[in-house]
């Protein structure tokens, strides 16, 4: 194999694929990126952790010899980063080595044969539809903070996608809070199986979306695999196994009859929570909210650090009461609200609270209180 690529092109492509490669691998070839040069002056890079696979094509200046090889992804990425800006990089295989040349630099890297490189078998992916990249990015932003990191509840370690009536819904929860994002069901998504997309795939996808926000993303999926195709011909294809588990029937925990409505400015709410939580220690991170007519008082009491309180103006006409929340959970949700008002629909100090921008917002949050 011999190919020449613009350093900037190579670097951008490598920065995408190397991020899928785990830092610590006990199977050596999983540390490698597969490089495939074809005669049509195109070079394809591929990386995998066996659950998630990324394939990206880039244009080459020239391909003198088609072929394929694998080398350490992080090593090649680090080299590409340090090569001079504007240089052309030549990749050439010789005697179980790959020679990287650019300007006055020359590297000889150990390789492993391409035939040993594991490829995720996608199988049939019968459901196909497109979503604007910007919508998919917003969907991820609004939900992924609620994804559970607890491995025992592995079925919560991702975003759950399902279709219902005329909508596509995405939900994530860690058992304490829930985030749901709803969009009009894309053409082709009808009849799609319920799927849970793993956190790592979500994270990689979100990074890639940032560069193609004005395009559409193609999703192809079955009950066990999902493939995201971004950015057309010289684009990126991300294929992931789906989490094999049953997402809980979360709709049951979304309150529908909470009759105490609190409205306030999300920004000053966020800042107030953040300020009073300064004295909250790891063990007592609860923020107490005392609700009275058109007023909320936030307070934190810490056995070690004293007390803090802040009063906020609000729209509230129901009966006064007190409720506690984890300050970080509140902040996570409030930072997703981008308008001038946030609605909190409350019932009592022990019941799920519904939080949203308004009834037209595609995003909705449910937060469980903390005893205070």
């Amino acid at each position: 194999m011999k190919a020449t690529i613009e350093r900037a092109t190579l670097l951008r492509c490598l920065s995408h694929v190397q991020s899928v490669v785990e830092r610590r691998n006990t199977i050596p070839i999983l540390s490698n990126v597969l490089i495939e040069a074809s005669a049509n002056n195109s070079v394809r890079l591929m990386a995998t952790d066996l659950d998630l696979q990324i394939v990206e094509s880039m244009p080459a200046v020239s391909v003198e010899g088609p072929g394929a090889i694998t080398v350490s992804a992080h090593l090649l990425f680090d080299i590409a980063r340090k090569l001079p800006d504007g240089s052309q990089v030549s990749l050439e295989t010789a005697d179980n080595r790959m020679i990287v040349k650019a300007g006055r630099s020359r590297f000889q890297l150990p390789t492993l044969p391409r035939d040993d490189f594991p490829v995720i078998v996608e199988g049939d992916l019968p459901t196909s539809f497109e979503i604007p990249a910007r919508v998919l990015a917003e969907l991820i932003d609004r939900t992924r903070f609620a994804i559970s990191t607890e491995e025992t509840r592995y079925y919560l370690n991702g975003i759950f996608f399902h279709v219902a009536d005329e909508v596509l819904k995405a939900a994530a929860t860690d058992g304490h809070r829930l985030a749901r994002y709803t969009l009009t069901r894309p053409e082709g998504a009808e009849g799609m199986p319920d799927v849970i997309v793993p956190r790592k795939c979500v994270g990689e996808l979100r990074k890639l979306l940032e560069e193609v926000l004005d395009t559409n993303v193609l999703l192809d999926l079955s009950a066990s695999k999902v493939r995201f195709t971004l950015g057309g011909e010289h684009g990126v294809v991300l294929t992931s196994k789906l989490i094999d588990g049953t997402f809980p029937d979360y709709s049951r925990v979304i309150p529908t009859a909470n009759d105490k409505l609190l409205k306030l400015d999300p920004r000053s709410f966020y800042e107030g929570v953040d300020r009073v939580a300064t004295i909250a220690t790891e063990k007592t991170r609860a923020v107490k909210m005392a609700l009275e007519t058109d007023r909320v008082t936030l307070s934190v009491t810490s056995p070690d650090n004293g007390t803090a309180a802040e009063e906020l103006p609000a729209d509230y006409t129901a009966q006064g009461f007190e409720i506690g929340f984890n300050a970080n959970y509140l902040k996570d949700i409030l930072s997703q609200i981008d308008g001038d008002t946030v609605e909190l629909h409350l019932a009592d100090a022990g019941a799920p609270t519904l939080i949203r921008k308004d009834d037209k917002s595609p995003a909705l949050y449910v937060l469980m209180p903390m005893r205070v």
Partner: protein
Amino acid sequence: MPLPPSPTAAAAEDAPGLRKIIHVDMDAFYASVEQRDAPELRGRPVAVGGSAARGVVAAASYEARAFGVRSAMPSARAVQLCPELIFRRPRFEVYRAVSQQIRAIFLDYTPHVEPLSLDEAYLDVTRDLRGIGSATRIAELIRQRIRAETGLTASAGVSYNKFLAKLASDQNKPDGLCVIRPGEGAAFVASLPVARFHGVGPRGAEKMAGLGIATGADLRRLDLATLRQHFGAQADYLYRAARGIDLRAVMADRPRKSVGAERTFDRDLSSGSVLRETLETIIDLAWDRIARADASGRTVTLKLKFRDFSAMSRARSVAAPIATRVALAEVARGLLDQVLPLPQPVRLMGVTLSALDEPGQDADAGATAPGQAQLPF
């Protein structure tokens, strides 16, 4: 080929070359303790576990094993094989005390002791506390002291990684010692029947036999892709194991994320009553480990593996940390009842406790923050 850095790279710098690992495994531990404490049981087939028609054997003496009695076998089947079989209820407090005795012996030689259960542990003696230098000598000394101080026998395996050390300890059981020296690992594994690999049960071995794989050498001929196709998540492990490779470090006092126990059954279980009875045995085993680890946690997970190797797990978190066997059993039974009847017979059942409280360490981001309510799914 660039191998990833070994987690014990620091230790390896001081002792260039290979690590020295010992795996110590007590012989028929629970049953041997019973025989030690009740002379009338000596020389006779003994099983520890539930003798009830629906119980399961937790451990069998060598006399019982001669009849084909194995741990995790339904008690009824064990009695069929060995009508003379004497059943004893497990006495975990006694096993725990003996376990502490042997652990104290290990710690005389190295601080790097990783207990796997009450009766087995890995020791990294690359640098031993007494300056003995020879891992084989240390293994012999440990075996002698276990015999002198507890009246029980142990087998030991010595090698340069955990996988090989564990295989070695199994090689000359009971009361045996086996050493796999540097350079011998791959050859040792090559000649080994695959059923001896940790994690390859009778079913796995059967499946491999169907593919023409009888030994480590046969396994080694398969590339990773083929292994993945047939063995899924286990493929990476098998790929390395077939080459005698194991880079894992001996982890003394590793931070636990969960603690519990599971058993693969001799025969698939399907009736609800059998499963409920078996669950009690597994709760016993799990509670034993939980108590020994002095762990408390809020999430109980029931894991089931079916005839076709597919798995299911169900978890429930409770508000107050589980502190008693009764509390653990209540949640575990509820989880089982919730999934009955099962779609197909079960080959493995396990119970674990997670979301553990870590004393002296602050809970992670609210996951276990006291007072935090759970969404009522």
